[in-house]
């Protein structure tokens, strides 16, 4: 089937099998390997991307379902050469270790602070509860997202 998506601002058209998962389309067809795969059951969340601005687990969406929509992946967070505040904050607060869950955590976090720039710890924990991390115990991920909210509200990344 022929589909057209806008990924990180660039339009792509492709012929895909109906059964192709969006995550495989993103990784293989678009070559955007910052989106990862960690389970078979929509449990781990490392494949999370923004579909028309909303976080979705891209292993549970067929590529054809994304036809006509815009996709934001981790590669699209940086704008005009500047890191997104969420990226700067994850480094600043040691919000990552192995880095495998990080792109998804940052995308979920970026959506949260867009809606709520000053989330409480519980609000952050609830927002990322669909995303697993095995390294950090979530402590510094929460701090990173809260810091990013403050940075975004202040209008910069530092």
């Amino acid at each position: 089937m022929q589909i057209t998506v806008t990924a990180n601002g660039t339009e792509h058209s492709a012929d895909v099998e109906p059964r192709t998962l969006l995550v495989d389309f993103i990784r293989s067809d678009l070559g955007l390997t910052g989106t990862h795969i960690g389970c078979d059951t929509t449990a781990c969340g490392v494949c999370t991307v923004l579909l028309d601005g909303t976080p979705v687990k891209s292993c549970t969406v067929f590529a054809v379902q994304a036809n006509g929509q815009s996709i934001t992946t981790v590669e699209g967070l940086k704008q005009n050469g500047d890191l997104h505040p969420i990226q700067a904050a994850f480094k600043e607060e040691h919000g990552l270790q192995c880095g495998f869950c990080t792109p998804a955590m940052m995308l979920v976090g970026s959506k949260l602070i867009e809606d709520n720039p000053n989330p409480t710890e519980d609000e952050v924990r609830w927002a990322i509860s669909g995303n697993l991390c095995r390294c950090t115990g979530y402590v510094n991920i929460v701090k990173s997202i809260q810091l990013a909210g403050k940075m975004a509200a202040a209008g910069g990344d530092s």
Partner: protein
Amino acid sequence: MTTTTDHHDPMTTPEVGGIGHSVKRHEDDRFIQGAGNYVDDIVLPGMLYMTLVRSPWAHATINGIDASAAEAIDGVVAVVTGELLAEYNLAWMPTMSGDTQAVLATDKVRFQGQEVAAVISTDPYVGRDGADAVVVDYDPLPPVTNPMQGLESDAPIIRTDLEDKGDNVAYEWESGDSAAVEEAFAKADRVVTLETHYPRSHPAPLETCGIVADVSPVTGQATLYMTSQAPHAHRTVFALVAGLPEQNIRIISPDLGGGFGNKVPVYPGYVVATAASLVIGKPVKWVETRYENLISTGFGRDYHMKGELAVTNKGKILGLKVDLLSDQGAFYSDAQPSKFPAGLFGIVTGSYEYPAAQVTAKGIYTNKAPGGIAYRCSFRVTEASYLIERLVQNAAYELEMDPAEFRSKNFIQADNFPYESPTGFVYDSGDYETAMRKAMDMVGYDDLRAEQAKAREEGRLIGIGMASFTEVVGAGNSQDYDILGLKMFDSAELRIHPTGKAILKLGVKAQGQGHETTFAQIVAEELGIPSSDVKVVEGDTDNTPYGLGTYASRSTPVAGAATSMVSRKVRDKARDIAAHLLEASADDLEWENGKFSVKGSPDSSVSIQDIAFAAYTNHPQGMEGGLEGVHYYDPPNMTYPFGTYIVAVEVDPGTGQWKVNRMVAVDDCGVRINPMIVDGQIQGGLTEGFAMANMQWITFDDDGNCLNAHFDNYMIPTAWETPRFELGETITPSPHHPIGAKGVGESATVGSPAAYVNAIIDALQHRGVTNIDMPVLPDRVWQALQESEG
């Protein structure tokens, strides 16, 4: 004796970023921009995909495999079976414990999920179609689903491949002094007994295991991009298994999405993909699904333990007796030092001083996946620490003493280090009382006890649990520690370039621990070169010195020490070059802040950067040019991190659910290279410890079906369930490590499960509950309460 302090002041400026600075991680820039490079991100021209066909049965004879329907599918290139591998002598391979393991099953399958055939295809979706179309004719056999059953006289024999194997015993092992233990038990006023199962668990790093095998049909060069925590050791194993010349094997372990021990063994999938690439002449990629990861690759734990502690009525421990039954799965493949069949379980005597201990252990084959890997643990230290900390807590209840007071009475005293334990470990340094008191102060121990008493009057169940653990990490000294004969030293190679920038190459391989930052900080400390000027390279066997890899908290104790030593070698040569530049005698120079200066003339100095430039442009005649070195570090002893964790819980008597109200962790890992990273390691470990206590286990039904092979039933805590942690530290340097550091990556996983479970037992012990096996699920708590009331 070493001195314990509560902090360590950095000796370097923040710009240099040596030891003690929370330097932001060098590796983060690529990860936060989605530019990490994990195995599944690697795509090579002409690459094929491998999909494994796995057994649905736990135990069954294979009558035949019909691959014709699969081979007829467009895009399926080949179907590999064990029969085909046998022609290349590759149907079986050695395990890390000297047993053998089937690569693809030929005679029978021995666990559910075992590898039976491999489909090679041009597309991964087609590979799945192909795997579904392979028809395997099985005759089911009765399975052995626990080690007790495996020991029964009429139990089915699993390892019929082993000549004359008439039972299911994988190993028997004993440590300690039985006569001394008998004497101790004869003198005891009472014996406290605990029987408990440390359940099978799985490290489940978020990245599963995988390989891209690229064997050149022209040169025979095999380049293997592998999820490997131990690339050098794996290269040697590949050379031995596949008979490939070692210089023609290059293992590249790129970014790893977590490891926790899961990426230490060599798995059948790696071997089959390599063989397929060799035969077909094209690169072959294999990446596990989560189901495959959980059902077939290295599990941890699965120890059935009985511990007996002999004590006096005054609260002194006299001796310890432990009997272990280990559920090994179908192949004995613990990745551990060869002298220690039950790993370093001998550390079970813990933080306490008493004269007698004995451990007997039996490993039993069952129809489950093999593994027994050191899941975020230094080879069975987790099981040992859990048992002694649970026993000590229960002994205190029997003696009607406070568990903290009982610990205090029995701790190895700070002035008694180095301390030789009854099972032969020589603890390097410690101050257990100080760490415990600090944790008690932080949590407000006395107030919590008062709150608990009040809550009990109201019918509420509050519990306070403690664990004062000691680990043994950093394998290790070569007279005691080897894996398959390979001694467990490790290495560092350091080159300073003309502009004063450095490249450090290591035999270890990080999986998120931040080596690219912390090892650069060690160089910064020793040479005064800013850590941001040091590039750290790991995970490429062609371009790094030999080493045994990263697991068992060994990187800092061994490769960290090697980094210090090679830096000092480089500094020695730098001194000679400095003497040449300053026209002084090398003996007249002193080293400070990255500079050599003439004693008494501080203005007459040269920086390490000046010296580096001279090493390539103006070195003394007769001296070898350049400024580099390599060091292989054979540690004199292991390091012994310790700490005290205190957990406060409230148990709901109506539902059996429990909630962590407080979690205080005081860790002592010696000198902390990067405090931010150390805290991150501890927070992650406390979460995995909580997972084991609360929800995370791999279990089987009576037919040997694995019940937890997906993330929807293998439960991992999310941010929502994970407790909040309060961290504290004491610093007792390791006396034998060049910078006084000990390993820390596993302390919290090792120490915390007992603290969580002790807290629950503490809430229930007044009703006669002395044990609930992990995971402490609500129904188990509820059941224990019903029985205690009955």
